[in-house]
């Protein structure tokens, strides 16, 4: 059936969560590409639950999909699922995050750790190399929070004059970002910068800062969501480390379709991250 | 310690003494329930505890069963002081208790309730076979027709009482405490119970017996201790005259136990409008072809044995349960089935037999409970007239002499008889045209009963009517203008006030109505589930 239209090619995409506009956009990119390529794309939402993702991977295999895109909830936890897909001879594309073990045909990702470093550098530049800052962490124990936090900490080592005065979790949530920042401002009214591990929390922080946002306090976010980009334009968000989720989704599907058709692909596809700043 | 030396001379030092309580005190927030009570029990006697509602009888026996701990005083068993801190302690001392309120688990089987916490085991696992067999024996001994595997939830209140008795017997105790076991039983069951109690007494068991039915005292008892306001006022032999017992208990004598004032003379009765007219009411497996009417100014009694279906008929009339066919009319207007509000709007009220399950919101105050039925009437533009409700509650509780710390006391902490007064009170406030009373005076002391009868008289005098179910036959006979007798889900006959005697009613109640046998079979078959 390689000759006739590819409409009977089924591809599965397991998204880690649609709780986050970033992945919603990734999904949108993937769906657009699938439509263009005329393949049947099934999207499932693992709701940030590794075992639900394992279930969905199993279900893809029952549906006889030709290839699978996994956007792992967790890189380790995805390994057994990938192995069973390998056993069933279904090629797997990893999107956004890698998978620790098992044969991944290609990984399409933008690097969270590198992004974190970039965020540190950007914030340092905005602050002129010195200042006191807050860090808003994502949900404790999630890989995104871990990797971005790690990258940021590493990146900050180059700037000894920047001090992190408080580091508190706000669960990637805008409302919590607002509350936590409000509280931290009581204890640390003099801060000059905030790094938030995603744009949602950054937008919450900006709300908490009010008129100070973008003036006396520089906020750097992560993801480059539409709302985030708008805030950058408005000058309240100093910068965001923009991944290109749509592009990421698109490339993942492109590769998955190629694999389904038996073509060879590069084992590593990098989607560039770029820092978006106002000026 | 008690200063009541009056009781001392009577409590002879006796080798056969099982148990003694000296100067026992218990206070609850706002109430002194027991204020230095002395009590003793001998082997092979039935010691009756007598007192008004709220006098402290139940509280006293709860000290023995481990449900409450005394604040002061001592308890001696076999002459040595003991501490009873829980049900286990009581069980070890050989004390078994039948509480005034049932303590059964609704979704467990009868057998399991009987052996609750003491189920026979084999290899560590529950041995159901043995348990059911032993339960069947006990049930046969108390003479109740329930199967060990029946779920308790499905039993009527009289059967629950019999299961409680079987449960207490299963302990083979030396001391058996019975708190108003006869309140919900009909004459027949009471006889069965008395036979059992006498046999136990002959075996040397000491029995503490609480009752508000004075005629039972002479029939069963040996000694009587009278409690008043948390104090033991005196101890007298059981053969004491009833009038004297009443005087000791209430502090005054009662002229007439059933002061029924018949408002409508026999001639006018026929002319009076039927307020309630029931025709051909039937629910398969429960009751068949029930027809009768209740006229203004009348008290109609509904008599019958346990399980005759009286409760089910009145619940159907009130709309609490569905029925299959037949009609219920109030003042000629037909009521829809299964609609409590329609029945209430038409002027019917029902005081249910199960006060805890159906009558009271136990954790709410006396005031809230009394105002429940009239809540809607007390509402203007969505807001409840709370002070008006409070005034009404204060009035009715005074009339019924509810013994309480105040209107804000939780109903759960009232004595059993006082709880019953609250159930009746809330319906008296509702001013229903036809008030149905199901076992209204269950657990109520003689003094308060008369008050309730007076209120019934006032109701009928003002043109209302009362339909009264009672297992207390003298009460039915004493208060009714007419008596309907039910047997096996049918009306077996009707008796006028003059012809209604104990024997006439009983003859109808045990009558095997022709054609009923099939229904009975059906009933039995359905019970298999």
């Amino acid at each position, binding site marked *: 059936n390689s000759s006739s239209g590819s409409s009977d090619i089924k591809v599965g995409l397991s998204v880690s969560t649609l709780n986050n506009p970033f992945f919603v956009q990734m999904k949108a990119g993937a769906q657009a590409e699938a439509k263009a390529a005329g393949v049947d794309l099934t999207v499932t939402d693992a709701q940030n639950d590794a075992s639900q993702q394992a279930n969905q991977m199993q279900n893809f295999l029952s549906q006889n999909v030709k290839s699978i895109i996994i956007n792992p909830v967790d890189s380790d936890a995805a390994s057994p699922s990938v192995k069973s897909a390998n056993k069933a001879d279904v090629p797997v594309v990893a999107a956004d995050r890698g998978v620790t073990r098992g044969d991944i045909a290609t990984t399409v990702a933008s690097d969270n750790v590198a992004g974190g470093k970039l965020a540190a550098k950007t914030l340092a530049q905005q602050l002129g190399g010195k200042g006191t800052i807050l860090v808003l962490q994502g949900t404790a124990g999630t890989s995104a929070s871990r990797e971005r936090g790690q990258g940021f900490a590493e990146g900050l080592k180059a700037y000894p004059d920047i001090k992190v005065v408080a580091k508190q979790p706000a669960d990637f949530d*805008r409302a919590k970002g607002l*509350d936590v920042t409000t509280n931290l401002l009581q204890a640390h009214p003099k801060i000059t910068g905030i790094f938030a591990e995603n744009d949602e929390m950054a937008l919450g922080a900006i709300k908490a800062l009010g008129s100070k946002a973008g003036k006396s306090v520089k906020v750097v976010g992560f993801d480059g969501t539409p709302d985030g980009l708008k805030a950058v334009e408005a000058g309240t968000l100093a910068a965001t480390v923009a991944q290109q989720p749509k592009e990421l989704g698109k490339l993942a599907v492109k590769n998955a379709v190629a694999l389904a058709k038996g073509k060879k692909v590069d084992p590593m596809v990098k989607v560039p991250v770029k820092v978006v700043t106002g000026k | 310690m008690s200063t009541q030396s009056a009781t001392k001379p009577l409590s002879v030092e006796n080798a056969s003494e099982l148990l003694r309580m000296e100067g026992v005190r218990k206070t609850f927030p706002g109430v002194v329930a027991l204020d230095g009570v002395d009590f003793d029990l001998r082997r092979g006697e039935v010691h009756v505890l007598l007192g008004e509602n709220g006098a402290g009888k139940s509280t006293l026996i709860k000290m023995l069963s481990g449900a409450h701990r005394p604040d002061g005083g001592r308890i001696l068993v076999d002459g040595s002081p003991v501490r009873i801190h829980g049900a286990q302690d009581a069980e070890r001392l050989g004390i078994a208790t039948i509480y005034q309120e049932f303590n059964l688990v609704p979704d467990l089987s009868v057998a399991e309730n009987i052996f609750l916490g003491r189920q026979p085991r084999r290899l560590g696992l529950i041995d159901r076979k043995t348990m059911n067999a032993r339960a069947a024996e006990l049930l046969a001994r108390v003479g109740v027709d329930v199967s060990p595997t029946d779920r308790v939830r499905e039993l009527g209140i009289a059967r629950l009482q019999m299961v409680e008795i079987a449960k207490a017997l299963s302990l083979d105790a030396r001391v058996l405490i019975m708190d108003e076991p006869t309140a919900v039983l009909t004459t027949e069951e009471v006889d069965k119970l008395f036979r059992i109690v006498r046999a136990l007494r002959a075996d040397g068991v000491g029995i503490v017996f609480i009752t508000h039915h004075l005629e039972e005292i002479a029939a069963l008892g040996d000694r009587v201790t009278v409690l008043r306001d948390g104090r033991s006022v005196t101890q007298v032999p059981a053969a004491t005259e009833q009038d004297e017992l009443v005087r000791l208990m209430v502090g005054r004598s009662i002229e007439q136990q059933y002061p029924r004032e018949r408002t409508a003379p026999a001639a006018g009765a026929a002319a009076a409008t039927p307020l309630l007219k029931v025709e051909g009411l039937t629910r398969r497996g429960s009751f068949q072809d029930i027809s009768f009417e209740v006229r203004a100014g009348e008290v109609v009694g509904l008599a019958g044995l346990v399980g005759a279906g009286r409760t089910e008929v009145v619940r159907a009339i009130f709309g609490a349960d569905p029925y299959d066919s037949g009609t219920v009319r109030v003042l000629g207007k037909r009521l829809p089935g299964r609609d409590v509000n329609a029945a209430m709007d038409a002027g019917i009220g029902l005081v249910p037999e199960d006060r805890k399950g159906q009558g009271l919101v136990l*954790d709410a105050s006396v005031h*809230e409970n009394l105002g429940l039925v009239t*809540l809607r009437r007390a509402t203007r533009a969505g807001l409840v007239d709370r002070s008006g409700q409070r005034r009404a509650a204060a009035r009715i509780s005074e009339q019924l002499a509810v013994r309480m710390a105040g209107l804000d006391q939780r109903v759960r902490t009232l004595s059993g008889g006082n709880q019953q007064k609250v159930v009746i009170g809330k319906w008296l406030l509702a001013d229903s045209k036809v008030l149905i009373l199901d076992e209204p005076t269950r657990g109520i002391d003689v003094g308060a009963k008369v008050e309730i009868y007076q209120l019934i008289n006032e109701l009928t005098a003002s043109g209302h009517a009362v339909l009264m179910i009672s297992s207390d036959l003298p009460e039915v006979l004493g208060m009714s203008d007419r008596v309907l007798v039910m047997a096996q889900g049918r009306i077996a006959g009707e008796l006028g006030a003059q012809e209604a005697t104990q024997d006439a009613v009983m003859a109808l109640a045990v009558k095997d109505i022709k054609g009923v046998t099939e229904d009975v079979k059906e009933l039995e078959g359905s019970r298999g589930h």
Partner: protein
Amino acid sequence: MATDTLKTSNAHQSPKAPGGSAVLRRVLLDNGALSALVVLVGVMSLMSGDFLTTQNLLNVGVQAAVTAILAFGVTFVIVSAGIDLSVGSVAALSATVLAWSATSQGLPVWLAVILAVGTGILCGLVSGALISFGKLPPFIATLAMLSIGRGLALVISQGSPIEIPESVARLGDTLGGWLPVPVIVMIAMGLITGAVLARTYSGRAMYAIGGNEEAARLSGIRVKRQKLVIYALSGGFAAIAGIVLASRLASAQPQAAVGYELDAIAAVVIGGASLSGGVGKASGTLIGALILAVLRNGLNLLSVSAFWQQVVIGVVIALAVLVDSLRRRA
């Protein structure tokens, strides 16, 4: 039913001592959780100098607002021996409806607000109907609504936040430059809750239904109809909480308020209500919500590490209620 007579009995314990401290003691005894809150505030003030400032206390108020408003609605449900797991989702759905109809569909703001509150009430009515007429356990009916509400919020918004109109966003601001509107809304909703529970027919019916549903039915209370009212109220309150939340963020998030149902129920229970029904007060619920907010605020001020934070929250919740339960026995 009402009057929490558990406490009545306590109130009788000191029949004398009419002095000055007696009043305070009475208040503390009367409202169990209050002592826990007082202790918590005391400890936080000692541990962090930033805690006991007017501004911070106002912040705590703002941060308690959404939980408190949700919890007020849930109080009706819990008093009547039900449970409502759907309030977080319903809040998100209502806010999404508001933003979508005003921003994407261009409806006038007042209409959008009515639509949003109507959505909340409708969700509540559906849960209520499933419970009274479908005889579903409240847990299941509202769990289903939790899932449905969240799903619909995602469907309507296509998974992305939607901006809300400027005029609604002003609800998240302050009045006169210092008094936060969410706090005012919270207090207003609290007063309404208190009045409904204590003074209205429906409120009294809630206590009766929660205390003994069968007795309530046989006393002529239309239990099914009242349950519709109860869940509709809860849904309406959830909608208002959702609007307040969205106004603070200036946007409606389909994934907002995830898991808030547990916070709301916890606030009600910490405030002295019983999940088996028949007891509960608006004042208790407010205190419960404040305890949770003080706790989170304090942990931020103290910069407790992210990993330990959850441990501390758990321990303090247990301790707070323990204080109450021990005090009640003492």
